[in-house]
């Protein structure tokens, strides 16, 4: 269907694609995996005409084609769905889909016919999208299906999907994969860019592995396994399993009693939750995203105003319900927030400036007069975080924005671990982080636990919480519906509890 031959692309001094060649067979699902910055998105953007390659050629159905703009690509039957959707929120599905290819004449827009066609496509692939709904009324998963429809409406035979599951909940991922399989049955060809091994194994027929701008492996999915793919991606053996000794739990550090939280819109987000976390143990919270985990962690970190919550939070036996975020940090409560761009980082600030966020008003960030920033102290701290947590590139003057997701996450974790904490609140520590860094982050969290820190971990990846946690609480609709031993419980059992089914 599509073949890339020796595609080479430079950005300044960086060789993003170095003689990249691979073939995607018609009617297959082809995965392209690699760590962040491996060049997989660049290669596919070249195929879609977003970038032009410096060298090499693209063949479609065996013929060399010049693809200079996305327009050329669409004309050749190539469609792409981006990681960040390109939809106009207040407009309807049909309006969004025809955008750029409006039917009718210049002065009259005939949407009815388009809506019929969209409905037909939606039925054909079982997408269940109403053409007359506005985008803002749709869930993220539905919005993604609108993006798919956009490509299908333009008669795409080949669909390129850039990290399509990054924004989806586990349930939505399942549905999404079912749609992709149906599309394959109907003869469409799909290229899926990802860095999640489990997804590659679950959905693809063939897989191309990229590292440092090069293709390092071209495999048939049934003939490979996670360990091999990980090794190819990272370039060395990777431990996919977390190795940890049994927990030696000590005294209770964090206590939550009858904690309830009301959201900004007045709806109940957390409903009468009680639990405790002891020193030297990792307590995991499993649950489908949006079941109150975000609010729970933010409340414990002191980021939810007192007027929106009730109940009691204790730290080492002391009531801290009314303490603000700064006071809690001073007690030794570190927080790795779930959204590193929104909460965790000042993207335009340097790495050095980011390593003092939260401690910027006291030593070592401030000199002994208590007002002026101590640049050498900040520098030393930054160097320490960068070295201990292997942040690359190791240059404290770079803006945080210029780092890859994994390195941004390592920076945040480094900053919080440097506190040093007695209690660690960790939310989605490895979201959008590549495998090498995931392994590193997991090891650091376990090391923190072994050092006597209490850890509360929230993750949307069930695998992650079961692997790391010593005890696992399952949350559903803001309530803790049960506690399980992650060593014993099966994922089916936990999954059932996550969706509200009681344990037998």
């Amino acid at each position, binding site marked *: 269907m599509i073949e890339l031959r020796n595609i080479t692309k430079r950005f*300044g001094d960086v060789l993003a694609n170095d003689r990249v060649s691979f073939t995607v067979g018609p009617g297959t699902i082809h995965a392209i995996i690699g760590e962040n910055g491996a060049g997989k998105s660049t290669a596919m953007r070249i195929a879609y005409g977003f970038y032009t390659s410096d060298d090499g050629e693209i063949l479609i159905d065996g013929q060399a084609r010049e693809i200079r703009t996305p327009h050329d690509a669409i004309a050749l039957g190539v469609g792409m769905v981006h990681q960040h959707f390109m939809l106009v929120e207040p407009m309807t599905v049909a309006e969004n889909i025809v955008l750029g290819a409006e039917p009718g004449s210049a002065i009259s827009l005939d949407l009815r016919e388009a809506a019929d066609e969209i409905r037909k496509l939606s039925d054909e692939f079982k997408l269940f999208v109403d053409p007359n709904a506005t985008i803002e009324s749709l869930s993220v998963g539905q919005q993604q299906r609108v993006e798919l429809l956009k490509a299908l409406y333009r008669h795409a035979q080949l669909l390129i999907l850039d990290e399509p599951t990054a924004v989806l909940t586990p349930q939505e991922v399942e549905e999404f994969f079912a749609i992709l399989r149906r599309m394959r049955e109907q003869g469409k060809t799909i290229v899926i860019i990802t860095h999640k091994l489990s997804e590659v194994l679950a959905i693809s027929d063939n897989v191309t592995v990229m590292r440092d701008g090069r293709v390092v492996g071209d495999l048939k999915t049934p003939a490979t396994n996670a360990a091999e793919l990980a090794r190819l991606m990272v370039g060395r053996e990777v431990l996919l399993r977390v190795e940890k000794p049994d927990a030696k739990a000590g005294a209770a550090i964090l206590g939550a009693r009858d904690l309830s939280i009301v959201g900004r819109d007045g709806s109940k987000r957390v409903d009468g939750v009680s639990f405790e976390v002891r020193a030297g143990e990792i307590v995991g919270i499993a649950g489908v995203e949006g079941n109150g985990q975000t609010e729970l962690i933010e409340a414990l*970190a002191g*980021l939810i105003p007192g007027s929106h919550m009730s109940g009691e939070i204790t730290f080492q036996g002391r009531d801290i319900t009314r303490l*603000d*975020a*700064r*006071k809690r*940090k001073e007690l030794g409560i570190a*927080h790795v*927030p779930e959204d590193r761009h*929104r*909460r*965790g*980082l*000042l*993207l*335009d*600030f*340097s790495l*050095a*400036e980011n390593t*003092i*966020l*939260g401690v*910027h*008003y006291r030593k070592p*960030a*401030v000199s002994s007069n208590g*007002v*002026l*920033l101590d*640049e*050498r102290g*900040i*520098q030393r701290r930054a*160097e320490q975080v960068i*070295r201990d947590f292997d942040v690359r*590139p*190791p*240059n*404290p*003057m*770079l803006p945080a924005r210029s780092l890859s997701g994994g390195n941004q996450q390592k920076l945040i974790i480094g900053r919080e671990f440097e506190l040093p904490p007695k209690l660690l609140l960790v939310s989605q520590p490895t979201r959008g982080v590549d495998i090498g860094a995931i392994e590193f982050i997991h090891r650091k969290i376990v090391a923190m636990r072994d050092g006597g820190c209490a850890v509360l971990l929230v993750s949307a990846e069930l695998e992650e919480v079961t692997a790391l946690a010593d005890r696992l609480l399952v949350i559903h609709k803001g309530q803790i519906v049960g506690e399980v031993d992650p060593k014993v419980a099966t994922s089916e059992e936990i999954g059932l509890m996550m969706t509200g089914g009681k344990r037998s």
Partner: protein
Amino acid sequence: MKRALCRRPGQFWDKDQRPKTKDQIVMKLLREILFPLIAVVAAFIVGGIVVLIIGDSPIQTYRLLIGSAFSWPDGIGYTLFYATPLIFTGLAVAVAFRCGLLNIGAEGQLYIGAFATAWVGIKLAGTSAWILLPLCCAVAIAAGAIWGGIPGLLKARFGSHEVINTIMLNFIAVALVSYFTQYHYKAPGDPILQTTTIGTTAHIARLGKFIPGLPERIPLNLAFIFAIIACAFVYILLWKTKWGYEIRATGANPSAAEYGGISIRKQIILAMAISGGLAGMVGINEVLGYRYRYYDGFSANYGFVGIAVALLGRNHPVGVFLAALLFAILLRGGIFVDAYTVHVSKDIVDMLQGIVIVFVAAEAAFRGPIKKFGLMRRAKV
């Protein structure tokens, strides 16, 4: 930080990592300086074409416009005098902007500051200069800070937008000081809307007193020195203190600032108060250094031009100082353009200011083509 980087060569950073840093510093400087510069040059080119169409010689017009600012002592003296209020208002807008706030109310804040300082100067006339002078200066700052702090407080407390509130407070300020001038503090029978004079002990010295060759009739006064100090103050505050870190963090990402234990509400009020205080300092230049009374409607839109100054100066004190100088040069030169050209009027100054702002705002649009010409790559080496 740059020094610390060089002090430990090879220890922590790889050799090939360091030149990259230097590149980045050069790039950053380029972006900070080159683009505003291009905007100014582009504005002058467009302005020149307009002058040509109107029927005058662009070269002669520009010689008048710019050249007249550099004559000694009048040109330089007046240019710096014009620059003084623009530095204050430019800094005011810049500080608020660094906290993510748009202070459209510098105009109102400077009126309040000027009137308040005049009021104290009138009421306490005869008091020793050692007391009265610092007091008058402090009152100008405090009054501006309060007037700027109000919209800050409203935003922090009720979330009402500072742009709306600062605009509204401009109207209130202008009406308020006019009323007090007209009905309470005007000299009886004075046809001009101005207050009686302040005590002589509240006068601040004109720079002519200290600089040989600069006559004292030129109103350039100590407030210009205060303006330079204010630039240094703002720089140290924003980049060298923990308070500045909190203000900038709030402006860069309020969510992350909150996460870092920073009270966003406090920062908003603080930044608006500092901003208002800086705007209020215009009153020191105007009342204590120039007219020795409050003259109603004295501001030639300093508060609004300050927005342009901050924009062109990229919200950095050094940039603000340079941008204020440029706008002052234009203000000064405009008078001569008016007098000595046939067709072009001093309105060309407003036009040039406008075009500069359009080009600064459109920076992103011409950043692309420049990259294409490889200018950046060459500059990097």
